[in-house]
């Protein structure tokens, strides 16, 4: 292992993480909801495609759309565009990765925000197991891609 000091951004990453944590804290304390991106999106999509009685679609749609303000707010706060560089080699690879992420977070009832930030904070053993497993498979996948790609 070699530390990539050139790209290491502990301050901004911790600040961003603290804001994500603050958002999760406020959503739970005021609205009683867990801030999990895959859960909120999945439930919104399920209710959109198959309307249910007593639907609670409103807050989820508002939450999801307001997330789109992120890059604009970033520009407003820092005066810079968000740095962004894709790594998926092709549109097919992007679609495959997206499909697997969707199936996986649907089956596993959560993602980096729901299990990683919210679940761990309330000492959920399910979330701890999920985080350890998805981290391990993330590391393994990048390692495997490195071998295949010969980078």
């Amino acid at each position, binding site marked *: 292992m*070699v*530390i*990539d000091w050139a*790209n*290491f951004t*502990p301050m*901004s*990453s*911790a600040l*961003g*993480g603290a*804001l*994500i944590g*603050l958002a*999760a804290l*406020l959503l*739970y304390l*005021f*609205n009683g909801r*867990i801030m999990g*991106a*895959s859960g909120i*999106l999945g439930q919104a999509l399920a209710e959109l495609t198959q309307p249910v009685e007593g639907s609670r679609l409103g807050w989820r749609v508002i939450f999801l*759309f*307001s*997330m*789109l*303000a992120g*890059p604009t*707010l970033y520009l407003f*706060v*820092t005066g810079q565009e*968000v*740095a*962004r560089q894709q790594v998926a080699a092709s549109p097919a690879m*992007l*679609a495959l*990765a*997206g*499909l*697997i992420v*969707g199936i*996986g*977070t649907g*089956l*596993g009832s959560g993602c980096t925000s729901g299990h990683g930030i919210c679940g761990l*904070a*309330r000492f*959920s053993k*399910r979330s701890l197991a999920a*985080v350890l497993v*998805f981290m*391990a*498979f*993330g*590391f*393994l996948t*990048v*390692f495997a*891609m490195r071998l295949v790609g010969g980078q």
Partner: protein
Amino acid sequence: MSLLLSLITGALFGLGLAIAGMLNPAKVIGFLDITGNWDPSLAFVMGAGLVVNLIGWQIARRRTQPIFERRFHLPQANQIDRRLLVGAALFGIGWGLAGLCPGPAITSLAFLDSEAFIFFIAMAAGLLVSRRIFIKN
């Protein structure tokens, strides 16, 4: 009031992802590249997010109900089952392939480019399909 709070927290989440560097797939892969040239930054995202949320959880657990709503909605499941582990493993693989997890995938739609849309639509389809299978069981 609770809808206004949803609006504020969604925007805060999106801004946090941008500042943290989570909207940049190359940076996420740099974090997952533990055997190569490792960029540990994203450990600071989760660490800081957790610390803030730990405080929040200690405040929330003393309350019987949230401030704007009638009750706290918590996941009912408490067993580590095969579905959870298989799902998490699949998610890890997809995350490692493209460097995008669901939050950044949603926020990235704001960039209005084809990469963001392709990933999001595939992810939405996967979410719907897996939820349908789960509900049938």
